[in-house]
């Protein structure tokens, strides 16, 4: 049975509070590919980013969750219900955007969204209309005449309408221009703030890092690691290059708190700093400074270096 919605957040909870729980899930295709022994969970009010290269098993995981395909081993529970047995009830509370989005070519966006709204037995048209207005989506052109980005907008409205408790989005911003990507990210953050959960996949960490609370890395069908984005950010070293007017003493900077790497060559100093920047900045300010640059490595580099260290 599905557990009932909690009245305060609108967010549902399973026995341990997780909205989605994969437990030892395996799905292998005949031609290879699939996922192996996947265990993960998504919490209420959380944006979970699922990161991996194409073909790593992200779409397989998502289609398993929606009961479009069935696991060969393991169990998947959503809202505390079984992904297969309780599938219809689960899908009533899930908004889904497929990675390989296909819409009914002969119909207009208005037809498609009306159709799904009727099938969901619910969302008010005014809400659909306001989502479409926000994304500047023209509802009355036939799908076959729409560009990829515009189709993606139709898919996003279809997923978000009715404010489902769980959003499952496969590469949601692919094909969208940066401005719209940002709008979509804002919508997802707003959904999470309202206590709903988001499970989104991407092959770009920078995107996931912008919206997700936690990131799971999947490679060749196996979940490699799950990290909090906040932890990743704290781990991220700042790369600081300083040029002074005269050569500094060898250990002027090396002994400062947070400095992990310090190389001095002539008047140039290269520092890598994690954590609090203030001691280093103060020291630099007090020195005879000629030039300064501060760079933050991409989270991709951090994440991957972390993964490489961990393995």
């Amino acid at each position, binding site marked *: 049975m599905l557990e009932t919605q909690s009245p305060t957040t609108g967010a549902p909870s399973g026995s341990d509070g997780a909205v989605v729980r994969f437990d030892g899930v395996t799905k292998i295709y005949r031609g290879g590919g699939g996922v192996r022994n996947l265990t993960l969970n998504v919490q209420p009010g959380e944006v979970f980013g699922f990161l991996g290269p194409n073909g790593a098993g992200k779409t397989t995981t998502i289609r398993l969750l929606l009961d479009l395909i069935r696991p060969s081993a393991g169990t998947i529970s959503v809202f505390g219900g079984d992904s297969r047995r309780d599938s219809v*009830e689960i899908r009533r509370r899930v908004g889904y955007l497929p990675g*390989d989005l296909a819409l009914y070519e*002969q119909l207009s966006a208005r037809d498609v969204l009306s159709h799904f709204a009727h099938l969901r037995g619910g969302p008010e048209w005014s809400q659909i209309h306001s989502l479409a207005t926000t994304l500047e989506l023209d509802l009355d052109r036939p799908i076959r005449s729409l560009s990829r980005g515009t189709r993606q907008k139709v898919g996003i409205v279809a997923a978000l309408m009715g404010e489902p408790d769980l959003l499952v989005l496969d590469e949601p911003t692919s094909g969208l221009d940066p401005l719209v990507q940002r709008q979509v990210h804002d919508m997802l953050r707003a959904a999470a703030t309202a206590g709903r959960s988001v499970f989104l996949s991407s092959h770009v960490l920078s995107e996931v890092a912008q919206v997700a609370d936690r990131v799971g890395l999947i490679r060749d069908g196996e979940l490699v690691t799950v990290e909090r984005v906040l932890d990743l950010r704290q781990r991220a070293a700042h790369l600081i290059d300083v040029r002074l007017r005269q050569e500094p003493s060898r250990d002027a900077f090396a002994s400062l708190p947070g400095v992990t790497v310090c190389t001095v060559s002539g008047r140039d100093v290269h520092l890598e700093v994690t954590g609090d920047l203030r001691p280093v900045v103060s020291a630099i300010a007090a020195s005879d400074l000629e030039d300064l640059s501060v760079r933050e490595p991409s989270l991709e580099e951090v994440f991957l270096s972390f993964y490489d260290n961990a393995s």
Partner: protein
Amino acid sequence: MTTPPELQVDAGPTRLRTIFARALREERGALIGWTIGIVAFCLVMLAMYPTVHGNAGFSKLLDAYPEALRKLFQLQDYTTGAGYLRTEVFSFVAPLLLTLFAVLWGSDLTAGEEERRTIDLLLANPISRRRFVSEKWLALVVGTIVIAAALEGALGALGPLFKLHVAWSALTAAVLGSWLFAVAFGTFALALGATTGRRGIARGVTTTIALASYLLATFSQLVSWLRPVRNLSLWQHTLGVDPLGTGFHWWRLGLVVAVTLVFGAFALWSFDRRDLAT
């Protein structure tokens, strides 16, 4: 100048409340086309009838044909209205046109959505796979009724303009037989499409079996060793028993309905247990 969004009048949602409604809507163009085609075919056949009707020369000519040929082409009473329709309309072309339409559509009902990948988004909605298949099947039944009704209407209503008179009940028996044959194979194509997810397989296999069914029933009139197995042919039960001349054969029609329901049940069962379009 563009109108600010808050001043725009929005047309609101459209209908398309069910998968059934959308299936018919998407097939609308094809339905109209096939209906026009079948009515046009009827008109051509009716227009030629006055040259045959009561033509003693024709009767003599046909009597001179070998019996085998007369049976094969169902040439008995060719110069009467019912006999003419049996030969020219119901012996092959009209039932098979209706069947071809049903097979093409039936194979597309679920497998088409899988091949076009629209199924993912559709089944993200809270509807069971069984409901999806059932509504699609219902659309097939209703859509073929439209074409069958056009067939009956064209022959029954326009026939008298060409001096072709045939009892409505006899005509209805023949059209009902054609329709049941078409729906049976349309459902079979749906079941194969639901099992394999591939339209091509569903179409190829179903068309072959439907043709074999026609050939078995027809040639069993000539080839005695085929006679014991001709009841395996759905054509035999629907059109092989000359519904225009002998009316409704209820147990045979009931048998075809039962077989169709078995195909439908198989479609529900096999679609429910599969991985979709992987």
